[in-house]
């Protein structure tokens, strides 16, 4: 059984008295351990699709299966539990809570899970070492570079050992070199810990790193290779 399975999923947004079909009748399977990129031009439905996989939004039609569980119509309390326990998120920018330090931000999901302070700190020490963030534990997000901020976001996403990490254009605000470094890091995490990664991007650089590229156009699957 695949880790993630979408069965004829559609997402329709009301807009005034019209309807915007953001994703239309889309089916997709993603196995555990994959490193997949959702590619496609702006407005093609990448964010919408990631949000449904990530339990941030419900499909208008169809089923979303995550870890052998149908989550498409679950209530918001259940969805928030699933997000906490199974999913890690990285966004394009402004990912972090500005009043918390880098370490506190990275610990945030573990704190929500009720994991004790000591255990949290130990995990952060390991992750920060792995992500090249040593010495930055007590910095506030505003005192970190864009690349460092994204690495803290990766640390937060990875900290609670989720089944899948979803990243919506994680390198869109970064320069090429920083993007390369970040991608290398995530690939390493994928290889060493077997964490499933799903990205959205229209950056050819990111796409070139992917093991599998799912292309969208106008909310439909264009190609899958």
């Amino acid at each position, binding site marked *: 059984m695949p880790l993630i399975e979408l069965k004829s999923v559609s997402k329709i947004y009301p807009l005034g008295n019209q309807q915007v079909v953001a994703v239309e009748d889309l089916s997709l399977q993603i196995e555990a351990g994959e490193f997949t990129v959702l590619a496609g031009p702006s407005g093609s439905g990448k*964010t919408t699709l990631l*949000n449904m996989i*990530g339990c*941030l*939004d419900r499909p208008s039609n169809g089923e979303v299966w995550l870890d052998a569980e149908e989550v498409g119509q679950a209530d*918001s*309390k259940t969805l*928030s*539990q699933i*997000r*906490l*326990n199974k*999913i*890690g*998120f990285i*966004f394009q*920018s*402004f*990912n*972090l*809570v*500005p*009043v*918390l330090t880098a370490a506190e931000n990275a610990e*945030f*999901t573990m*704190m*929500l*899970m009720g994991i004790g302070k000591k255990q949290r700190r130990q995990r952060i020490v390991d992750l920060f070492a792995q992500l090249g963030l040593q010495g930055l534990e007590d910095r506030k997000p505003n005192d970190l570079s864009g690349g460092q901020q994204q690495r803290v976001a990766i640390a*937060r*996403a990875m900290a*609670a050992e989720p089944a899948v990490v979803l990243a919506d254009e994680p390198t869109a605000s970064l320069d090429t070199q920083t993007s390369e470094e970040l991608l290398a890091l995530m690939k390493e995490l994928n290889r060493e810990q077997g964490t499933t990664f799903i990205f959205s991007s229209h950056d050819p650089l990111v796409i070139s790193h992917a093991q599998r590229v799912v292309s969208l156009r106008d909310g439909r699957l264009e190609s899958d290779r």
Partner: protein
Amino acid sequence: MDLFLLAWKNLWRSRRRTLITLAALSFSLMLVQGFHNLSFGVYSEMIDSGVRAGTGHLVVYQQDYVAGRDEKFSFDPQKLVSQISDLDGVEAVLPRLYLPGLAQSSRESRGILLTGVDPSAEHMINPFLKNLTAEQLPTLSGREAVLGSRLLKELQLKPGNKFVVTLQRRDGELVSEMFRVHSVVTTGIKNVDKSLLLVGRERAAAMAGMPGEVHELAVVLQDQRADRQVFPLLQALLHDRPQLRALSWDEAMPNLSNAIKLDYASQKFIFVIMLLIVTIGVINTLLMSVMERFREFGVMLAVGASTLRLRVLVFVEAFLLGVVAMLLGSIFGSLLTWYLSAVGIDLRDFIDSSLEFGGVVFDPIMRASWDLPYMLQIAGFMLLLSLAAAVYPAIKAGRILPAEALRHH
């Protein structure tokens, strides 16, 4: 605990806004505490001089004397005076007789209320008499009289002059007796200065044909707040005399008590309005801080925070704001109270006539006294208001949809 830390940090991310809100909260708490304590001090003082000149903190009457002041309702106190004096917390028991009548000099006549008192017992207690020396007091059964200064003037008398008092005896006959102006008092209360006529109680009782009887036993307590403890003891003493009734000062002097209640009610109204306005300010602050964090809340929801946790976060922020305001406000309120009790407000700077309120003259320097239970209560109320102010912002925070919030930049 982590949530408290996060809330505390959030509170200070917009430092100026938080400080302004705190200033509004603590300043209003300071005003409420300080000015309540000032009123509390002034009222206590008024009640104190009111009861000492008037009915005492507690009073014993026959039946409905208090309603109509009908001089028929007199009674023989028998052993009551000494029995009540022996109760714990009682400072003095003052037997009094009140007889309406007419005072005549060779030139003028005036309606008066002839008051028969025990001069030596009243001396230290009754503010009308406290400026007299022992020699200036009348005797219990003599013809010496103490007159209000206006009455003296209206009757065109001078100290040492004689005048005649006429009143109706118990049996219906009119009687007239001669008295002599022994001393004069100025209380500052127009009505009192116009009608005060104090004589020895035994003289007055003999004249009215009811020797040994009184209309009122005024019980003055050491501490005003002890009236609840002493009242039942007093009632127990009256148990075998069903025609006698014990009352507390606010029942016996409804004018004074109502004047205070009315004054305090209008003050309370201002307090409530002020606190409401401040609460609206707090709602605004909290709501703005929620709206500014729309995307941040979206991120927190995305990584697994529940909407409940966001709501609790907003409440904790309001709670911390309230606690700080409560502490700061109480410190300022205490400083204000300290100033108002040590220095006070000198009303002579504003008004030059004498100050009368509800039939009582009071000290022209208003001084606060500490009402700690009230200060705590109002500080707690402030905390509740902060929490109440968080209700709507917390609901707002709980309604944020993560997918929508994340689209915001």
